[in-house]
């Protein structure tokens, strides 16, 4: 909110610090001053009043009270003199009926007769302009002026335009309409609180006045309304009709109901001074339940405990007094605090501690490390495995990305993610079409990363470890997923990366099962059906490895092949194992023999490996496929597989003869297959 430096100064006899300095003080002790701006002979202070302080500080008086406490200054009261005309009584001119009592705690009106509508005096116009308001005429300007000074929104009606001189505060009957002062038309539905006369709406309560009882050049008799409307009702109405005003903004933050008379008096006195006229005697005041100051018992030991500093009692009293709290001693170490009714934000002892410590100065609070039991923090294994996983992939040359948690409609369609059983979650109020859904998979955004990066990088190796979101069994489910990719024809490379990763996480028994999507799935499958495998650990499937289908890649205009893995990280970490056991290193030498087998092109390596293992038994320590060859020198439809076989016994040195025997046994076993031929 914009404040006028000169206006604030007018409440103090003592000269205030220059604007920049004053702004720093306000920032440090109360609210952040966002900007200081020279404006004519004045300065605008743009103060970011905290929302809980709206009730008292959306007003110059509020800031003045703060400064009185911060700078320990005395406030100069400057109420203009109010002279009432004893001949005319306000209640004889206007009747107020509040039919919606829960929505209107108080409704106060003053009546002024024989006013002369004209431009307001310079100082009022200047102050309004400094605060960003446009001067209109003396009556309207004074209502705004009083609002800026006290925080109480006012509204001025032309008395003679009010049918039957009756003001009714009620909910709209529905189907009612109003044309506001700025010539806008609003339909008022049933929940909206309005000010009406006996015939039709005069104003949208607490939000905006209507054209019907507008103050005009010829207006002579004025009704000043100072009311207190329920904050929730005003907030809802303001949202519903999508209209925010200086008044609605103040009402929705709440206001002190005791403020209405003070504000109405100030307005009446100013009108009398600058628009002439006679102020009718008294108010018309609907205020069935007077709000009294709250009392809070403040335990000084608690104050010290919460701040961690002993502030002398005299100081505490002085601070609270300056902020207009009443302070009384109540036994040893206890104070009874009377909270002024404009401090709607204060109801707990903690609230008082805040007032004390901020005005005393946070900079005076020492830094003292807490006394706490010496216990190590709980080890969060989930996070430890996350870091370990990310590090392994990093060391293997993969870069970590963090993508948006959102997907667009187009993504959903391209990747076939809209099937109901996937339970995709849609955002009700997306900021753009790109952010319409929560991602049910990390694959989409990673592929989009490839698309973005392919013009700058020939080879892309990236991964993300992040959450995916779904709606399942009337619950939202979020799970961590580990998804990564490499560009190029790198299926076996990526398979090796997964083996490396899983082994490093202490997982063995990894195997890969050919992926056989159901016909229904295959229609939308993003995988190349021929190059896709389930990653299995024992009997559990933990994810997929595969090459992306040409259709998906073409759709995204990705030029290279892409191989991806997509792993359920929650399942994975359940299988990880930190335990390691030392395996005795055999003291007997190992021997390596090679074997090359010519097999039909469609023979799987695993079949060959199995035969070698079965025939070799325990003596084989390792088998290493080092070459796959298909080509010219070979017969049509055949390929050559070459293995290193490493032999080692735990209990003796193998003689060449023994090795020869096993090797022959393996060859024999391999050649049992009619189409296989061991090359000697």
């Amino acid at each position, binding site marked *: 909110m914009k404040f006028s430096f000169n206006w604030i100064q007018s409440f103090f006899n003592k000269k205030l610090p220059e604007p920049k300095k004053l702004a720093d003080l306000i920032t*440090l002790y*109360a*609210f*952040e001053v966002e900007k200081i701006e020279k404006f004519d002979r004045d300065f605008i202070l743009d103060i970011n009043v*905290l*929302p*809980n302080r709206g009730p008292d500080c959306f007003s110059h008086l509020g800031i003045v009270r703060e400064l009185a406490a911060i700078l320990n200054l005395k406030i100069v009261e400057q109420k203009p003199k109010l002279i009432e005309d004893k001949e005319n009584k306000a209640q004889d001119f206007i009747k107020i009926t509040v039919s919606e009592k829960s929505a209107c705690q108080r409704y106060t009106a003053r009546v002024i007769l024989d006013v002369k509508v004209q431009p307001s005096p310079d100082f009022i116009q200047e102050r309004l302009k400094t605060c960003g308001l446009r001067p209109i005429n003396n009556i309207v300007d004074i209502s705004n002026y009083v609002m800026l000074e006290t925080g109480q929104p006012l509204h001025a009606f032309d008395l003679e335009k009010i049918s039957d001189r009756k003001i009714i505060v009620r909910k709209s009957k529905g189907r009612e309409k109003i044309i506001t002062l700025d010539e806008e038309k609003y339909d008022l539905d049933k929940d909206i609180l309005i000010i009406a006369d006996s015939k039709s709406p005069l104003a949208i309560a607490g939000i905006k006045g209507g054209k019907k009882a507008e103050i005009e050049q010829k207006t002579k008799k004025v009704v000043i309304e100072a009311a207190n409307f329920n904050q929730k009702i005003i*907030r809802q109405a303001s949202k519903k009709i999508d209209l925010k005003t200086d008044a609605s903004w103040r009402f929705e933050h709440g206001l002190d109901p005791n403020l209405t008379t003070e504000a109405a008096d100030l307005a009446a006195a100013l009108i009398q001074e600058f628009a002439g006229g006679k102020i009718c005697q008294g108010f018309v005041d609907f205020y069935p339940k007077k709000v009294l100051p709250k009392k809070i018992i403040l335990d000084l030991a608690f104050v010290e*405990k919460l*701040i*961690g500093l002993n502030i002398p009692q005299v100081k505490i009293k002085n601070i609270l007094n300056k902020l207009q709290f009443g302070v009384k001693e109540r036994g040893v170490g206890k104070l009874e605090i009377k909270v002024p009714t404009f401090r709607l934000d204060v109801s*707990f002892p*903690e609230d008082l*501690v*805040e007032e004390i*410590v*901020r005005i005393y100065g*946070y*900079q005076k*609070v*020492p*830094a*003292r490390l*807490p*006394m*706490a039991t*010496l216990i190590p*923090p709980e080890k*969060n294994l989930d*996070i430890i495995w996350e870091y370990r996983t*990310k*590090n392994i992939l*990093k*060391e293997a*040359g*993969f*870069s*970590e*990305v*963090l*993508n*948006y*948690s*959102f997907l667009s409609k187009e993504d959903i369609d391209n990747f076939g993610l809209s099937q109901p059983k996937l339970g995709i*979650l*849609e*955002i*009700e*109020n997306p*900021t753009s079409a790109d952010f319409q859904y929560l991602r049910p998979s990390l694959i989409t955004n990673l592929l*989009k*990363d490839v698309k*973005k*990066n392919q013009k*700058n990088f020939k080879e892309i190796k*990236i991964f993300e470890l992040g*959450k995916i979101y779904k*709606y399942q069994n009337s619950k*939202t489910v*979020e799970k961590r997923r580990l998804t990564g990719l490499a560009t190029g024809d790198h299926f076996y490379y990526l398979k090796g990366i997964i083996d490396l990763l899983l082994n490093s996480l202490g997982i063995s028994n990894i195997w890969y099962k050919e992926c056989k999507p159901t016909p229904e799935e295959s229609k939308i499958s993003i995988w190349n059906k021929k190059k896709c495998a389930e990653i299995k650990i024992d009997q559990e499937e933990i994810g997929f490895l595969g090459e992306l289908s040409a259709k998906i890649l073409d759709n995204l205009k990705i030029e290279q092949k892409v191989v991806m893995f997509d792993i359920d990280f929650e399942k994975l970490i359940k299988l990880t194992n930190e335990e390691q056991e030392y395996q005795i290193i055999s003291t007997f030498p190992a021997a390596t023999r090679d074997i090359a087998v010519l097999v039909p092109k469609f023979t799987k390596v695993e079949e060959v490996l199995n035969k070698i293992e079965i025939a070799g038994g325990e003596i084989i320590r390792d088998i290493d496929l080092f070459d796959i060859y298909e080509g010219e020198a070979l017969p049509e439809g055949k390929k050559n597989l070459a293995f290193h076989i490493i032999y080692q016994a735990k209990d003796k040195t193998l003689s060449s003869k023994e090795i020869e025997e096993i090797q022959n046994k393996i060859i024999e076993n391999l050649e049992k297959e009619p189409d296989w031929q061991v090359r000697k």
Partner: protein
Amino acid sequence: MVKTNLNLLVKKAQKEIEKSRNLKELDGVFNKYLAKKGEISRILNSLKKLPKKKRAKVGQKTNEIKKILAEKIEQKKQKFKTDLKEKSDQEQWFDITVPGKKIALGHLHPLGQIRKKIEDIFQSMGFSVVDGPEVETPWYNFDALNIPADHPARDLWDTFWLKDVKKKFLLRTHTSPVQVRYLEKNQPPLRIIVPGRVFRHEATDASHETDFWQVEGLMIGKDISIANFKAVIEKFLQEFFGRETKMRLRPSYFPFVEPGFEVDIFCSACQGNGCPVCKQMGWVEIIGAGMVHPNVLKNAGLNPKGWTGFAFGMGMNRLAMMKYKIDDIRLFNSGDLRFLQQF
């Protein structure tokens, strides 16, 4: 007589070994003394003539000498070989300015690195790291945190709502809901931090993002004070930035704390003179914090009596931007490897 001869022979042979200047000359020495027809063999052969007792003695002595000489020759031989290799190394031309072979390591995301750093610092002070859901209910995101419905305070957090599940779910706007979730299951005293993604319904620009990272902190005990908060955060900032960091607290408002304050750090870019980094203020706001509101403890099912504590929240993207001098918050979610591979 034999003895003198042997001693002389050894001396002579050693001298010749020393004098030999190359492998060829050394071979000559070997042949002269140690080869089948060399001096030593000759002596050994001549032993047959000696009486048995003496023969054994001289024989032993001769064999020892043979061994010593063989070792000396071998040593010298090795030296010649090493010299030869060194010489050839010296003669080779080698360019050390050729660029090193590129080893492609991957990179961890800067936010992940920042997160790890934050976790390490707080864990060293006894804080446990905990996690919570990103899709939240209004209760945990707002009501339990003392932010009632239809209250202007809610406007401080622009919220994404999920469709179809009528105002039942939202994307958490801060990591603070985990405070309540954790308190429901754990008794004070306690110390936790909660790093995680949060979401704000905002237009994005260089300093605003819809999907970013925060870390929440919570410490509750019998006598936890503002002074304690100051010390813990001072320690954190010092460790995080690797230097003494000037900070200040100023009043602020978050409904789930009371008193509430903001932590500003002195702008190191301009030394407090005002610059774009600190929006001309000389200070940069980095942490929202305060003393846990008794209503939050109540809402988590705890009796607030006797317990006090502090809570704080900070934007990890912001911290990363300050640490690495990154000027656009959108880079974090961009997936741009030109950015990511710098970390």
